[in-house]
């Protein structure tokens, strides 16, 4: 039930925020803050009560309730380490998004918070659902409010950007819907059971040709969302025209839904087709890394610049996903989290600057280090994070990804590493242009105030924590990553001692409609043989600092 509550609180909170706006503008901000805090608290509680997921069972909680039984659609939610981490990120970023809009959004405050909370609800749904119909449903639910966020509260060119964002994601989403339907009918014809359940569909055997086509359907949606280079053109527009909260959610969360989709659906559903496609996907990743970096370097609009760094960083994600080993996937999960934080932070700084200067043009900025030292320090930390300085989270992410992808494809990894050098160049350019050089502005630039520090400090703490002690995150993600990779690492040895482990009791009051499914589909050996493969050795990373 707790999973349903996460979504319900956000949706109801959204409606309440809208209604309470009629009474008082400030009230809707507090309602929004309260509901995000509530779900954040719930998720945190969930994480802390299962500090180390029991080995052998990746799924912590499941909830299933029939929805449209005629079509085999159920309202099915489940959480494992991966979803848990993504939810923590979602609500953390959501909290920041509410806080940074406190002063920035002054028109139609109530409707803004409604949209904000509904985007978060949609994203939460995407990270939780285990029913493909429901997945598509939430995938679409997060689009509309995002469209409004960009289209109503964005900058000058907002309508164009909102349009483009909507059309790109909708078109690719429909292709995914076709693929989902294809999978549904193939599975139904094989087994006679027509269902959209993820766990059931995992057992579908596909002809290679069909698998390839269906995989491309799913890839269309995820690669556009990620985005991978030929399909990225919506991203710079959407990111730069959105209000700060919108940019933060786009960069921090919406892109991650694409990566999550790759991990959760594409890898386990199409184990053969992905292997065929892997070299091309990795090539696209490398192209993305380098292309994004080059374009980032040549931008003058700060938000556009940061947007292109996202393209570059997301290249690492696709590179890692298609390396098919645990190192790379751990790197991908870390990258999703740290990129969410570091890029989110850079957008927030861009927002702070825009609020003060009403420009995003970095040519007009300069020399702010002396006038706004606090902002300078914060910016420095996140710029360093973005270029992958050891000690900060992004380093761990990129290091792991590269280690993993090296095992899969040496040459492409070499080229990907060039991206790190380029990241250094564009990142230092940001610092150089904004905080050093001569100050052309006559305008006074007030330093960060208490509310802004309240936003910045937790982010700094998080990125440092992820950089210095990523073990807790890696531990949480590990079982589910192994599960996604099961089809790739499967060796007969590993299945000798199969043991079924029931899901841990996190909720004491089990309601009738909650079904407790032991992880029947996934039986992981209780004692993994350390000699079978490199990927199954436990990962312990100690940072150099």
């Amino acid at each position, binding site marked *: 039930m707790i999973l349903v509550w996460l979504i319900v609180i956000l949706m109801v909170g959204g409606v309440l925020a809208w209604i309470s706006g009629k009474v008082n503008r400030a009230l809707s901000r507090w309602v929004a803050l309260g509901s995000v805090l509530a779900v954040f608290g719930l998720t945190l509680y969930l994480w802390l009560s299962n500090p180390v997921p029991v080995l052998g069972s990746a799924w912590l909680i499941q909830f299933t309730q029939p929805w*449209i039984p005629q079509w085999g659609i159920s309202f099915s939610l489940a959480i494992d380490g991966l979803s848990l981490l993504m939810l923590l990120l979602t609500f953390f970023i959501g909290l920041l998004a509410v806080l940074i809009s406190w002063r920035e959004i002054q028109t139609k405050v109530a409707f803004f918070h409604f949209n904000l909370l509904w985007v978060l609800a949609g994203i939460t749904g995407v990270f939780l659902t285990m029913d493909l119909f429901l997945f598509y*449903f939430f995938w679409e639910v997060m689009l509309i409010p995002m469209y409004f966020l960009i289209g109503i509260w964005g900058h000058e060119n907002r309508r164009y950007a909102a349009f483009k964002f909507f059309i790109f994601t909708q078109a690719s989403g429909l292709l995914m819907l076709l693929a989902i339907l294809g999978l549904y009918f193939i599975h139904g014809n094989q087994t006679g059971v027509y269902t959209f359940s993820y766990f059931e569909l995992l057992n579908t055997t596909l002809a290679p040709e069909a698998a390839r086509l269906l995989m491309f359907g799913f890839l269309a949606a995820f690669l556009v969302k990620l985005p991978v280079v030929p399909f990225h053109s919506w991203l710079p527009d959407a990111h730069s025209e959105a209000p700060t909260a919108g940019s933060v959610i786009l960069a921090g969360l919406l892109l991650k839904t694409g990566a999550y989709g790759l991990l959760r659906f594409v890898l386990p559903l199409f184990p053969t087709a992905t292997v065929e496609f892997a070299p091309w996907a990795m090539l696209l990743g490398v192209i993305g890394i380098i292309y994004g970096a080059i374009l980032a370097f040549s931008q003058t609009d700060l938000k556009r610049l940061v947007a292109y760094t996202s393209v570059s960083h997301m290249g690492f994600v696709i590179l890692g996903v298609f390396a098919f080993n645990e190192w790379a996937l751990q790197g991908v999960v870390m990258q999703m989290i740290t990129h969410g934080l570091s890029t989110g932070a850079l957008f927030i700084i861009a927002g702070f600057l825009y609020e003060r200067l009403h420009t995003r043009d970095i040519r007009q900025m300069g020399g702010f280090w002396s006038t706004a030292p606090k902002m300078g320090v914060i910016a420095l930390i996140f710029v360093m994070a973005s270029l992958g300085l050891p000690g900060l989270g992004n380093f761990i992410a990129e290091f792991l990804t590269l280690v993993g992808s090296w095992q899969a494809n040496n040459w492409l990894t070499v080229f990907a590493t060039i991206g790190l050098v380029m990241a250094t160049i564009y990142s230092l350019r940001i610092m150089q242009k904004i905080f050093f050089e001569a100050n052309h502005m006559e305008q006074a630039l007030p330093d960060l105030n208490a509310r802004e520090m309240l936003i910045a400090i937790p982010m700094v703490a998080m990125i440092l924590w992820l950089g210095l002690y990523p073990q807790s995150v890696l531990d949480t993600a590990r079982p589910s990553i192994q599960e996604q990779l099961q089809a790739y690492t499967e060796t007969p040895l590993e299945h000798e001692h199969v043991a079924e482990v029931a899901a841990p009791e996190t909720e004491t009051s089990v309601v009738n409609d909650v079904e407790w499914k032991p992880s029947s589909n996934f039986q992981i050996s209780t004692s993994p043989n350390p000699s079978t493969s490199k990927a199954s050795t436990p990962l312990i990373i100690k940072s150099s600092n």
Partner: protein
Amino acid sequence: MTLTDFQHLMPLLILTFAVLVSMLVIAVGRNHKIMYVITAVSFLAAFASLFELRDVGRYTIEPLLVVDGFGVFYIGMMLLAALLISMLSYAYFEQREERKEEYYMLLLLATIGACVLVISKHFASLFLGIEILSVSLYALIAYLRTRERSNEAGIKYLILAAFSSAFLLFGMALVYASTGTMEFAGIAAAIANFTELPLLLLTGFGLMIVGIGFKLSVVPFHMWAPDVYEGAPAPVTAFIATVSKGGVLGVLIRFFMEVDGFRYPTLVLIFTIVAIASMLAGNLLALLQRNVKRILAYSSIAHLGYLLVAFLAGNQMGVEAVTFYLVAYFITTVGAFGVVAMLSDKERDAEQLEDYRALLWRRPWTAAVFTAMLLSLAGIPLTAGFVGKFYILAAGVNTQLWLLVVMLALNSVIGLFYYIRIVAVMFQQPEAEAEIQPRGRLRPSIYVASVGTLTVLALLLVYIGVYPSGLLQIIQGLLVTSTAP
């Protein structure tokens, strides 16, 4: 005819009776409110009488009609749509000076025509139904006769519909000439052994498709739709878009399922081309429009194309998908035109995109309802349109009509452009403070009828979007008896 025959035709008899009563009432004295109440009550009574026919199975009234689950469902759907339209009409016509009482009579008549269509099993009843429907529509479209556009639309519809009827008749004659019967079942038996249609029969079917295509306004027979939609009074437009098309589609499905037209590649090819052309032309032309009624006209052309995709699936699931989508489409279209009708003032309909600028800040609830309707047309989740589109896609994927399915997906994206554009216009910032003031409203009692109807429609839309199982159960329960050939 026996007594049981009459019982099975009860909805039609009630409507016919209502028409006669209306005529007498008008003769005694004109009163808009009384006419309105008679109409609404008779629609309700006709709908209630359908509950008697719930478990009808398949009852034939030789040689013309057949009452079965399929027919009952379609009649019910059209009666409800007509009821909602008459609710919306009251406020719309109350503002206008012209004589408004005959309008309801024509509305009742046109509904009878549509109902006859979906239960006909003979060319004679088919033609009778289509003509009752069309003749009433001629008058309805040109009802506001002082307005130039309205007259133009009426004449246009009259000429084209007469032409299409001629095509239909000629087609029927050719089919009769080669099979010797006008009953659907007889035709099915006569051509059961043909693997390929002979030329004469093919020509007959082709001409009939022209006639039916006009009524459905599918490409290339769609020319009249935008002009008529634009010229007709908004409630009448809603009627043309829903009840009239629903009835014709119903008889098309019945005929095709009966003769199993899906066996013949030529016919399937014709419908495939028509479906693709309708989707593409409808959506692309809608992009160029600035007039909301014309946008909705082109969008309905595209939606008929979507419906044909499920129709072409040609099996039980396809029929269910068509029916489900039709319900969603009815709700959405009536709702959208209801908003147009509600925003219209004495002089003209609210049809320019400009009329909707910053509507969200002037009339938030109206704008919210309109947004919901448009998003449903675009097939966005939480609305009935999404589930309907999903059903159609599922039916298409199931029978592996990949070309059509991909075209549908592509067209949904094109469709998004113009739906979202209207939404964007409504969400724009008001330029001056004066604009925020709502324009003069009608008397509250009249206003309530429209607002209530729109609220019901919006709630239905979301309910079906979130919880479609209920509707699915009804559809599957009623259709299971009738479509098995």
